[in-house]
């Protein structure tokens, strides 16, 4: 019951970086419209992670969009569950959920609640929203693949502020100890958390050195640049024995000038002229 079995799954889109960029623009437009219509949402976080999600669903992950329970699919866990708006808009862009559903975001008993719920939405693997949970679950999934001889990869997207939760470091010890080379963590390193800069609230740096000392292969990239993201994620040896982490240097609120790098846009939504201006900037 050991050793990887090559999966026959491929990414259903296999897009080039420039094509991923075009998808990112569409996802960002959806995020702005969806959050504005809902009257709520974590807009800054949604825009920060957009390019990472686009790279995963349009290039890296091997899955069938219409087979959310395929046991050999690559898994994605949104540990920073508050980034769910960007996740839903990515799923809609990939045709996994009906884009018309986006208008129900945050409504009573919606299929798209304000944090991911696996019983509600396809390709949500675990319910998140409380921080510091995703990496342990991802490690368990990665270990299950090894024990059962399945070849799937596990991707988990972590917020940077989230790394202040101690449970992440328990999970890192385990990922390294169990030699989970099929585990890829991505840190959305936009340097902002709810109240302020991570470094002024509770410093994470030197983050790369910390992650490396916990046994991870660490790489950095511009987390809003699909070409760089794809290059790093492709280069990771996912059949090896070291877990991987991509420090994705992102800009919170990316793509909209007045939202970029502003802590105040963590969970604000554009209204009126702001929405018009934001959409124009994405053109």
């Amino acid at each position: 019951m050991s050793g990887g079995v090559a999966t026959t799954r491929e990414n259903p889109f296999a897009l080039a970086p420039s094509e991923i960029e075009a998808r990112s623009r569409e996802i960002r437009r959806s995020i702005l419209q969806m959050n504005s219509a809902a009257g709520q949402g974590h807009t800054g976080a949604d825009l920060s992670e957009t390019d990472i999600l686009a790279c995963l669903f349009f290039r890296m992950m091997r899955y069938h969009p219409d087979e959310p329970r395929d046991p050999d699919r690559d898994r994605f866990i949104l540990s920073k569950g508050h980034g769910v708006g960007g996740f839903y808009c990515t799923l809609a862009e990939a045709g996994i959920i009906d884009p018309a559903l986006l208008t129900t975001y945050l409504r009573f008993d919606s299929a798209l609640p304000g944090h991911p719920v696996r019983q509600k939405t396809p390709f949500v693997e675990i319910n998140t929203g409380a921080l510091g949970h995703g990496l342990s679950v991802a490690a368990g999934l990665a270990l299950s693949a090894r024990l059962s001889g399945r070849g799937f990869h596990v991707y988990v997207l972590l917020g940077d502020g989230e790394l202040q939760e101690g449970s992440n470091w328990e999970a890192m010890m385990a990922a390294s100890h169990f030699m989970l080379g099929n585990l890829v963590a991505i840190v959305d390193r936009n340097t902002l958390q709810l109240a302020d800069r991570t470094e002024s609230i509770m410093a994470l740096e030197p983050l790369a050195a910390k992650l490396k000392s916990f046994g991870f292969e660490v790489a950095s990239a511009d987390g809003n640049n699909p070409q760089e993201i794809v290059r790093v994620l492709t280069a990771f040896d996912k059949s090896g024995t070291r877990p991987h982490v991509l420090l994705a240097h992102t800009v919170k609120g990316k793509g909209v000038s007045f939202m970029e790098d502003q802590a105040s846009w963590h969970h604000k939504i554009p209204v009126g002229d702001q929405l018009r201006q934001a959409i124009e900037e994405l053109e």
Partner: protein
Amino acid sequence: MMAEARAQDLREAVVEELCTAADEGLPLVVLVSDSTSTSSIAPFHTRFPDRLINVGIAEQNLLGMAAGLSLGGFISVTANAACFLTARSCEQLKTDICYSNTNVKLLGLNAGVAYGPLASTHHAIDDISILLGFGTIEVFAPSDGREAAQILRYALGHVGPVYIRMDNTALPVVHGPAYRFQPGRVDVVREGKDLTIFALGTLLHEALEAARALSARGVDVCVAALPSLRPLDADEVDRLAMATGAVVTVEEHSLHGGIGSIVSEILADRGHAVRLARQGIPQGEFAKAGPRGRIREYYGIDAAGIEQACRRLLGMEG
């Protein structure tokens, strides 16, 4: 039901059943948090070394990984002390296990005040209360090894989270070979018409001893264990209470949110009044530390204390 002379540790019965289930090919993994000795898991570990996962002293990661392994197709069984399981990793329990409805079976070892002198960090007198506050999870408290093994077997076949409240002492097997655990069922171990005792888990043994003593004084006591707290046949609880009109609940648990609360709610919901005494650790208190027997005596949940509570309720004092 015939009592057997044989005494058995609940853990021994459960680990034996785990080995049997693994032999049958069930895709089991057992996760421990440095709790290999606490769980008496050695026989399983010896036979299935690659199916025992020790995450170290890291209870949050224990549950997160258990959830992840279950999402990968395994039946995850965790085995660690109930106090740390329900308190240290409470949010993982809530989110990764209950809310996410993952296929994880939780053995809450050494629950209640089993750790007696090790004091309140190690007591779990709130586990039932915590778990019943969450959605989806089924909650069980076996009273002997035979029942514990059967509950485990049921849990392995049930898709979804299950908690099993465990004890760590060798106890007489009160259930005969014909006994078949059924989720929801109230386990009437002794019939009686004067008073009904509802007992949680292994306190059944103390309740039976109290009933025997009362019988010698001409008091005919019904003793019912509640091995299945969720689901629970509430109508049967009501029927057994109303049949005698006098109820004593006994639990090694806080009176907040344990079986005293559950039985009271069932009766109140139906507008049924009975004489009622709830024996346990008073709400708002941590339990005293000391030898377990002494703690049980202090809170009136040993045989003598239960007997006294029954007599008081029936106006037989003095």
